[in-house]
Each structure stands twice: as structure tokens, then as C-alpha cells.
């Protein structure tokens, strides 16, 4: 795999080779990120492949993926680095009485006592990596502010050690479910990519890629139904991963068509909310032809 792709097409075909079908802007923005060394901020509804994009990108570029999962209350100690205080304590106690304080201090704030967390790991890595900061919107604004230095200069300041700058430029992806507005300062440093549910043809391609054995007609029917369900007013619209799961299930069942019975039996793969189930079976189920003898038996 080439380390830096030469064109948008390169990126697109690289991603495709890993089983990720990028949309037009996805490939473009990924390409620009590798060229300009700017982080990408990926936003979109749940389940459109934001995290998957980072994985695919890492794989296609032959880089290691370093992942930082954000959550409420994530702090520097868990994201950047931490001093291994147990080891430090032991070190102090093991010291002979005569040693001066200065010598000990220099000693215990060495790299040996530093626990690297994902961000530092990505910066300090010898090999170029892909850094994924997942669900950045779950953290608080202070954490975002802390990221700014990292994202614009790719360096981290540790008071006791000095500044650690990256030798290799990581590709950074930040994902967000848009549950809160991110700060302007953070957005300013990023390229912005909005991922939405794919168009019908695009999703069909994705499903085909993952379940090549599924009959064409069933695949199309499935994608049409998924798109129909997404348009309904439900709590959790089905994601791409769920369409793929459904396709796999249908393949296992040997379905040749999706009729009302088949839909009712397998619907729970794409719809996962009690009230949603009611809405979907009421609005979509009736549009399907009632179960025919042709449908494969559910229990062999």
C-alpha cells in the first residue's frame, strides 16, 4: 500500500479494497487530510460508518490505528499521560538514605515512570499512525481546549519533561454525533465531513460487497425497505451495519424474497425499540405481499 496516496482516486480505491465504500466527499476529504495534515471532523447520525472510516483508512494506508474513546468525565490522565505514582513511590522508598532530593526528583520524572495514553502514544509513535478520537461530543469543553495544541501543532507539553513533538504526522479523525455544538476553535482546525445515510444505490453496493451471495432482487428489496423505514418517524433509524446484518440473516435463512412473514420475523434485526417495532410493522409490513409458500422456512 502506498503511504501517501497520489490522488482522490487512490484513496477511494484503497478504501474500497478494505471493504469500505466511500461516498464522493468521503474520499476527497480523506485525501485532503493526508495531503494537508489537517484533522478531519466527521459528523453524522449514528451508524453511518464514521468509526469504520477511520479503521478503513488505517488499513488502506498500512498504518496502526490508535483509538481514544471519549466519554463523560474523560480527563488528561486517561487521554494524554499519567505518572505512574506507585512505581514512583517504590522508587523513592528503595532509595538509600544518602541520595539527595534532586537526584531522586530527576530520576522519578523520567520516561520510565510515564504511562502513555492514546494521544501521547499517537504523537510519540515512530511509525505514522491514524488517530481516532471517537465521540468527541461526549467530553466537556475543557478537554476540547486541551486538544487544540495537539491538533494544530501535533505536540504535547509535559511540564516535567518538556514538549514532545510528533516525528511522524498522524492522520487524525474526530467523530461526533452532534449531541452538542463543538467549539469554533476546534472546528476551525479541522476539515469537516458530514456523513449521512447513503443513497439507495450506494447502500445496495455496500450490502452486495458484504454479502455477495445474496440474490440481487432480495438485496434491492432489502435496501428499499431499510430506506423506507429510515423515513418513518422512529426513535432509532436502522444503521448501515444493521442492513448488512439483516442481509446476512436473510442469506442464512435462504430467503428468495422478502414477504410480509419474512419481514415480521426478521424485522427485529433492523428495528430495536418496542414502539418502533409497532410503527414499522404497521406502516411497512402491510405494504408487503402476504407470506407465500415460496418463502423459506424459518426453522429448518
Amino acid at each position, binding site marked *: 500500500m502506498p503511504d501517501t496516496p497520489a490522488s482522490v482516486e487512490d484513496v477511494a480505491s484503497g478504501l474500497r479494497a478494505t471493504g469500505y465504500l466511500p461516498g*464522493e466527499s468521503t474520499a*476527497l476529504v480523506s485525501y485532503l487530510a493526508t495531503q494537508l495534515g489537517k484533522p478531519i471532523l466527521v459528523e453524522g447520525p449514528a451508524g453511518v460508518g464514521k468509526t469504520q472510516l477511520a479503521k478503513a483508512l488505517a488499513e488502506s494506508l498500512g498504518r496502526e490505528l490508535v483509538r481514544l474513546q471519549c466519554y*463523560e468525565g474523560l480527563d488528561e490522565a486517561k487521554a494524554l499521560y499519567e505518572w505512574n505514582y506507585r512505581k514512583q513511590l517504590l522508587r523513592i522508598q528503595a532509595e538509600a538514605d544518602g541520595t539527595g532530593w534532586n537526584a531522586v526528583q530527576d530520576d522519578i520524572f523520567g520516561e520510565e515512570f510515564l504511562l502513555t495514553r492514546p494521544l501521547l502514544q499517537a504523537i510519540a509513535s515512530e511509525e505514522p499512525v491514524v488517530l481516532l478520537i471517537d465521540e468527541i*461530543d461526549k467530553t466537556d*469543553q475543557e478537554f476540547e481546549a486541551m486538544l487544540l495544541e495537539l491538533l494544530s501543532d501535533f505536540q504535547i507539553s509535559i511540564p516535567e519533561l518538556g514538549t514532545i513533538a510528533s516525528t511522524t504526522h498522524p492522520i487524525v479523525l474526530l467523530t461526533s454525533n452532534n*449531541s*452538542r455544538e463543538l467549539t469554533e476553535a476546534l472546528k476551525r482546525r479541522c476539515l469537516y465531513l458530514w456523513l449521512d445515510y447513503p443513497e439507495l444505490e450506494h447502500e445496495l453496493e455496500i450490502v452486495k460487497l458484504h454479502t455477495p451471495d445474496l440474490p440481487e432482487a432480495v438485496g434491492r428489496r432489502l435496501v428499499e425497505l431499510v430506506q423506507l423505514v429510515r423515513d*418513518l418517524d422512529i426513535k432509532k433509524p436502522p444503521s448501515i451495519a444493521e442492513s448488512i446484518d439483516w442481509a446476512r440473516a436473510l442469506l442464512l435463512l435462504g430467503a428468495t424474497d422478502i414477504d410480509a412473514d419474512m419481514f415480521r420475523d426478521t424485522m427485529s434485526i433492523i428495528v430495536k425499540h418496542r414502539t418502533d417495532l409497532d410503527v414499522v410493522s404497521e406502516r411497512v409490513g402491510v405494504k408487503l405481499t402476504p407470506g407465500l409458500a415460496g418463502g423459506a422456512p424459518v426453522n429448518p
Partner: protein
Amino acid sequence: MSQRAGGPNPRAAALHARGTSTGGQAPVGIAARLLEFGEELRGEGVAVGTSELLDAFSVLDHVEWTDRVLFRESLATTLAKSPEDRRIFGLVFDRFFFRAAEMAAVEEGVREDGGIDFDQAGEFDMEELRKLIAEAIQDGDGDRMSDLARLAIAAFGQQGEGSGVVGVDVQRIRRQLGLKAEPQPDLPEEDPRRDGLPRDEIRRFEQMLRRELERGQIERTETLPPARPLNEIDRALPSGPLQDLAAVHRTVMQLKRRLKTQGQEQRGNRRHAHVDVRKTMRASLQTGGVPVELKFKPKRPRRPEIYVVCDVSTSVASASVFFLSVLHALHDSFRKMRSFVFIERISEVTEVFQKERNFRAVSEAIGRDAGVADVSGYTDYGRVWREFREQVEADLHPRSTVIILGDARTNGRDPAAEVFGHIAAKAGRTFWLNPEPKLYWNYGDSVIATYEQYCEAFECWTTAHLEEFVKALTRPVHSA
């Protein structure tokens, strides 16, 4: 503009010729254009900073900017950084570059060859054309639709004289083509219009018509019409009866998630936080009993008791039903909630919302059961306050919140501000949401100023306003 199949588009060529003639790999022409474009985005409220523009330039070094999609997406990724901005970007982009290309064409004197020959137009078989267009819309075939849009203009332009107003002409042509989203059962079996056409595609076709008509106008007059700012309505609250329910719900979901994470933002403000002794002691075990790390009690977001009083007279009805349904969707954020609707008199509808989950069903149920439909239809604020006071005064206490939604238009009746003041004094906080833009406040029979002295008044006619308000509502109060 989608390029037509028959040869390269002369206008696009003219624009590019202009760009490259000034020489250099990043021609001056395009740089100035980009700055203008950034300026126009700012004008529509997209925050475009200098660093964003610099990014846009550096991005264009890396892509073929003669490819329309690449060009557009490259600009979008650097200039528009939220879904909302993205949408505005799309609109501004189309408008800006359409105008730029037309301008160039006028300056260079380029006229399109193979334009429509109006003498030929009479030969079109009208029925055939209708059917062709309906089919193209049914299939969502963009290229065919744009070709047919030109034909349609030619054909109908000859029959009737154009009104000269683009919007009117578009609607006239649409009517004559019989394009409707609703099924038309009286049409013959094989006609694609019989089962109704996809609404989005019809809208797209209308846009193409509009574009072609504008193009024709520019070509005739050789000047550009003045640029229109984007319609504010584009951003207004979903209110019409035809509104997409799913869109309403998405707004609500968004609000809900933001409310959930909101407590988080308060965390940074630890100065007034209380130390949680138990947790601190527990944490100190790690450091041999020395309390190195203090643990604080989390701040709980305020969960207010809410009384909503909503005007449902025709002037504000759609906004208020939307608003009520938002509040009820947010029910878990509140401890207790009672809703009232009023026109001339007041009635409680809390139960209606608990039973019905569906927005439309709710608005129907309110119209049917709430007992507000049978009165004169003119709001009487004075009477409403008195009745409201009678019903809930005993329950009001300093921790309760009263929210009024209405336009404060009294139809010349007594506003009874002192009764309202009394209610506001009893309740902890009182908010007034006015679905009218601030510009119209206190004009005509609007008496919002008399009420404003007792409460906080917000204008509330876009989702952004609504969000601001919900934030204010759940903001924890610092007890002094």
C-alpha cells in the same frame, strides 16, 4: 447547473477561459471570486474566518477544480462546519456560481447555441410532453428532467405569455403539467401521475424550471437580477400542516440529547461545588489515607415543575402545537408538567399529550376535545389569566415555572396585566415565548410590553430560538 449531454456547456467554458486568461496556477480571477463567495456566506450567517478561507485556497492546490463536484466538496469541507452551515453552503454555492457564470457569459457575449426555437415549440404534442416529464420525475432522472424543463418552458411559453415573474411562471407551468404529489385516480392506468409523484423530485423539477427561466431572463435583458438573501422562512420552525413529522421529531431528539449532556458543561464551574466526603475518603485509600484528590458532589440539573399555557388561536396555532409537543417529548427532563391551551377560555390538555404520541393526532385531539373550538375564536387574555389563576393558584409555588406561548395580541380587549403579574409573583419563574419576530412586537394590538415587565420574554420562531429557551429553562439556579 448540470451539464447537458450535447457538447460542453459554453457558459462554463467562458468562466474557465476567463479564469485561466489571467494566468498563474491559482488565477487572480478565482481568488477574488472565492473571497466574494466567502463574503456572501458570511452574509448568510455562516462563520467563515480568514483561516477557513486560507484552508480553502490550500485545498484547491490539491484538487482539480475544474471538476464541479470536487470543487464544491473541497470548499464545503473547509468552509461549512455544521449540518446547518452545510445546507446554507449548498444554497449559496448554487446561487453564487450560477450568477458568476451568467455574468461571465453576458460579458463575453456568449449565447447558447441550439437554444429553443420558439417557432418549433408548437409542434410538441402536449400530452406526450406531460407524460415524458412525469416519467422523468418518477425515475428521478436529473439530466432528462433538466432537458425537459427547457422543453416545457418553450412549449408553455408559447401558449400563454410569461408573466415576467419567475415564481409565478414556475407554478403556472407546474399546474399545466398536472404534476401533483397526491394520487390522481381519474387519469388513465399507464400514466405515471396516477399514483402521485415523489414530492422531492417535483421540487427539484421546479428548481430546474426556475433556473432555466432566470437564465432566459438574463439572456434577454443582459443584466443580472439583484441578489436575494436566503429566505428566513427556510430556517423557521416547522409549522405548516404539511410539515414533515420526522423533521419535527429529529429537532426534538437533538434537543433531548443536548439537554442530557448539558449538566456536563456545568462541571467546569467547580467553585461552588460541595465536597463529597464519602467519595473523598474512599479515594484517599489509594494514597494511604491522605486525601490527595477531592471528590465533589455532582450538580444536578434543575428539573422544574412546569405549567405551559398555550395560545391555539389561528394566528399562532401551528407554532404552539409544535411547541407543546416538544415540551412533552422532553417530559423526562421535568418533574411535573401540566399544559393548558386557550383561545377565549382556557382548558387543560395534559392528558391528551400523555395518551397521544403523534403530533398530528395531538393537534386533532386538541381541536376536538379540548373545548376551545366552540368559542368566538378571538383571544381574550384577561379572561384567560383569571381562569388560569383560579385553576392553579393553589399549586403554584416558588419552584414552579410558568411558560406562556402566545403573540400577546389582545384584539383590543383588556390585557389584565395585574392578574398576570399576580400569577408571575406566585410562580418562581415566568417565561413568555412569542412566535412573532421581535420586529412586530408592540405593533398593532400586540401588548407584549405590558406583560414583559413581569416575565422574561423570548422570541421563538426558529429551532435555534427554541434551543436557547430550553437551555434557559433547565439552567440550574444558583441559590444565593
